[in-house]
């Protein structure tokens, strides 16, 4: 599995405006909705599911990266988005550092293997310092997509 298999190109956010955990998650879920995923009536339910998961423990994995996620019945395959914050967002990360790179994953209820492989893929890609540096400097959705597609 590659990141370009599940990241929705039209939902990539090159510059998040929110500066809080909840705000960022609302922006992330909203971007998938704007890209044609989820009904408007499902937005709040999905947002709450992702926020509930954060309450069980932050998905800020360190290295300025967070992978907020949830399962939801509105998707029939795993989808995701990637977003960058120019100033960083406090996210209760494992290392206490603010988060600049967000990858959100929304999975179907019954595909735990896909979720594990997507997590593995994101983590493996993000272990590359040169990739992270290039990503954080990418100014546009197209520039971010090119990096993801080549990763």
């Amino acid at each position, binding site marked *: 599995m590659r990141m370009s298999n599940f990241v929705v190109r039209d939902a990539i956010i090159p510059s998040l405006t929110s500066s809080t955990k909840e705000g960022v998650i609302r922006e992330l879920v909203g971007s998938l909705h704007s890209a044609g995923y989820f009904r408007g009536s499902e937005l709040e339910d999905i947002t709450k599911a992702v926020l509930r998961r954060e309450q*069980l423990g932050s*998905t800020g*994995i*360190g*290295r300025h990266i967070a*992978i907020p996620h949830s399962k939801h019945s509105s998707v029939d395959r795993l989808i995701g988005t990637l977003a960058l914050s120019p100033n960083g967002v406090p996210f209760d990360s494992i290392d206490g550092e603010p988060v600049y790179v967000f990858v959100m994953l929304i999975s179907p209820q019954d595909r735990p293997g896909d979720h*594990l492989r997507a*997590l*593995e893929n994101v983590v*493996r890609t993000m272990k590359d310092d040169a990739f992270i540096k290039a990503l954080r400097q990418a100014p546009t959705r197209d520039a971010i997509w090119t990096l993801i597609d080549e990763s």
Partner: protein
Amino acid sequence: MNHDDRNEFGSIALAYEITVELSPVERACMEINGRMCGTAAIVNPQGLHMRPAMAFARAALAFDSSVTVWLGERSVNGKSLIDLMLLAAEQGTELMVEVHGRDAPDALPVLLNILAATSADDIESTPAASHG
């Protein structure tokens, strides 16, 4: 050294090396004093996802011993959440935990219990996960 101990490639073939096939981690456990190993199968239907991996890394960090997790021939640092997620261990996967250090006898059962938990909620409700 007797000439008969050499095989056709010229290397020494000792009897126990031929008859006993040990995995690298089993060899490591046998060779070095103070090292302990144990295996656990992942029974959680969600696999070793982020929450149990985080519980494992946190528990491992609370011990002085080094912690290595093996999946077949691959090994990762058990104190690193990121490394543990690289295993993408699904339900049914058997993992071996290798601990080395002063508190290895205390660490091994705690860590194996986390891997063997049926759900992340179970781990978080047991004292083991809050060790240290």
